[in-house]
């Protein structure tokens, strides 16, 4: 059971941004019909895309983006000390998302590709999810997060209820939509091992699951890999599948099997 956020009448919320597109912040601002109600419940004290004021005093820290610099790690440790509750938002913060793509390449090469001759002024490290640096209380998942998910999790945290984070795979939601399975459309799909909660958004619009929400609680990765091989994928192609969003944990010891978010 999660402890309710204690003290002030309206808990103070700070939203921090690491390497990301800021799209998840925009998703919160997109909650147009709910924003006034939301502001009755919490007070934002730092939110770069929405306000100029800043504060270093808050109960709930929302973190968007992946760790890509040493200074990010310091920043996170500071936030962890200040905040009662640390919640990540979006795929960059967990499981590492698009910033993790660079982990598949030589860091020097990546640096000079982006910054050219000035690469030396922008030292970066391997892209990491937030929970690889500090303990995280909860992940709000997705690329981007869904506003309903954000509201549901926030209301649950405010009353100290277990936030409704699905433990199962995307397939569960996809079947309920009566979609034609991506595998039956000649595609491969990470739905069977990816955490649900998106309503199988991508497969419902003719695409397939790319794994943006990370692994479900109990993924059968061995059987999934056997299935992908049966569909003609090589080991390298399978790693590339995982690498789009899961390019941190899939490269650690034991591959994807080693890391399941709780």
């Amino acid at each position: 059971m999660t402890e309710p956020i204690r003290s002030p009448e309206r808990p103070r919320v700070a939203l921090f941004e690491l390497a990301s597109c800021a799209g998840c912040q925009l998703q919160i601002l997109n909650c147009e019909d709910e924003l006034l109600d939301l502001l009755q419940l919490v007070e934002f004290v730092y939110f770069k895309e929405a306000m100029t004021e800043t504060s270093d005093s808050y109960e709930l820290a929302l973190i968007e983006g992946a760790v890509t610099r040493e200074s990010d790690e310091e920043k996170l440790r500071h936030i962890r000390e200040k905040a009662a509750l640390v919640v990540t938002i979006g795929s960059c913060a967990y499981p590492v998302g698009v910033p993790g793509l660079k982990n598949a390449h030589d860091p020097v090469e990546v640096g000079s590709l982006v910054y050219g001759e000035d690469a030396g002024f922008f030292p970066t490290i391997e892209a990491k999810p937030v929970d690889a640096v500090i303990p995280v209380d909860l992940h709000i998942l997705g690329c981007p997060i869904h506003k309903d998910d954000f509201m549901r999790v926030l209301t649950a945290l405010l009353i100290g209820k277990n936030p409704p984070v699905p433990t199962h795979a995307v397939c569960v939601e996809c079947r309920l939509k009566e979609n034609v399975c991506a595998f039956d459309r000649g595609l491969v799909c990470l739905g069977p091992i990816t955490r649900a909660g998106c309503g199988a958004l991508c497969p419902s619009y003719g695409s397939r699951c790319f794994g943006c929400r990370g692994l479900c609680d109990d993924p059968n990765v061995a059987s999934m890999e056997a299935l992908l091989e049966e569909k003609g994928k090589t080991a390298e192609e399978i790693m590339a599948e995982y690498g789009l969003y899961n390019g941190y944990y899939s490269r650690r010891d034991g591959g994807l099997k080693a890391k399941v978010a709780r």
Partner: protein
Amino acid sequence: MIDRVVAKTDLIRSIDRLAHEQSVFAPVANGPQFSFKVISSAEEVAEGYLPTALPPSKHLLPPREALLRFAWHDELAVEPVIEATETVAFGLRPCDLHALELLDAIFVDDKDDGHYRARREAAFFVGIECLEPCDDHCFCESMGSLRADSGFDVLLTDLGDTYYVRVESTKGRDFVLAVDGAHEAVYEDRTRLRKAHEGRDAAFTPRLDVAMEHLPALLAESSDSLLWDVLGEKCLSCGACTNVCPTCYCFDVRDELNLDMKSGERVRTWDSCQLEEFAMVGTGESFRKPREMRVKHRFNRKGRYIFERYGRMGCVGCGRCARACLVDIDPVEVFNQLKGRPVER
């Protein structure tokens, strides 16, 4: 009641009229598969369809429904939500009719669930007989659900240009009498029906090595079978099999709070014994954590536990789970392997 015969074109016209007047729920094509949907004209109805992606039970027990709404203002106010629309369910296959009768036994006769019962009472069932197997996955004949003798208001049998209509309720009689040109079945019609049934009986061959009546005992003595471990290694626990199953009815209930923190609703959603969380209790332990235990549980529900409790088989042989399974777990193979066929690892 008196059986009737109607011309196909007249019946289609009648369904078309109904679809303009009220809710008609019928199989509609969606790419290579089919789904029950509320139609607006008879043109949308798919003929000769494979069992639908989700079973028709989704109409009586929706994947997500509000059970009650609550609000705290000066005091707590709670309103039950009972919603039912008069609906004609058109084109139900015998396997699905058997499954719906099982759900009636559970949700009306045993538990008297008001939400389910209201929809069931507002539903009118038009069954349609299967005269040939739908594909390699169906095994309804082996599960005793190829023939439907009850659970419908009318049952259609395709006789070429006409349908033979078996009438089982007064609502069914009114339905068929509203079809232009409906006439009482005479000796020649009954002969044609018998011939159609003979053709059907020859077309469906048994697929199980074990008689349906012996499945409960077979499963009981197979508790330690190595097959469960083999299946546990393959199973993705994606819940496809239970979501598409016409007899699966397990659900979860949660309270959802609105942003005003004063009102909300209690929601019932489909759940699945194949998911790790299903058998998890408040302290975090799960009674069926290993995947092989969950797989074993599902097959025992289908071939044993439900039969022991309700006297009806928990599997109707529609083959939906086998069609949906990405790793080819097929109940025909599972039951036959438990009976002694070699297991391929």
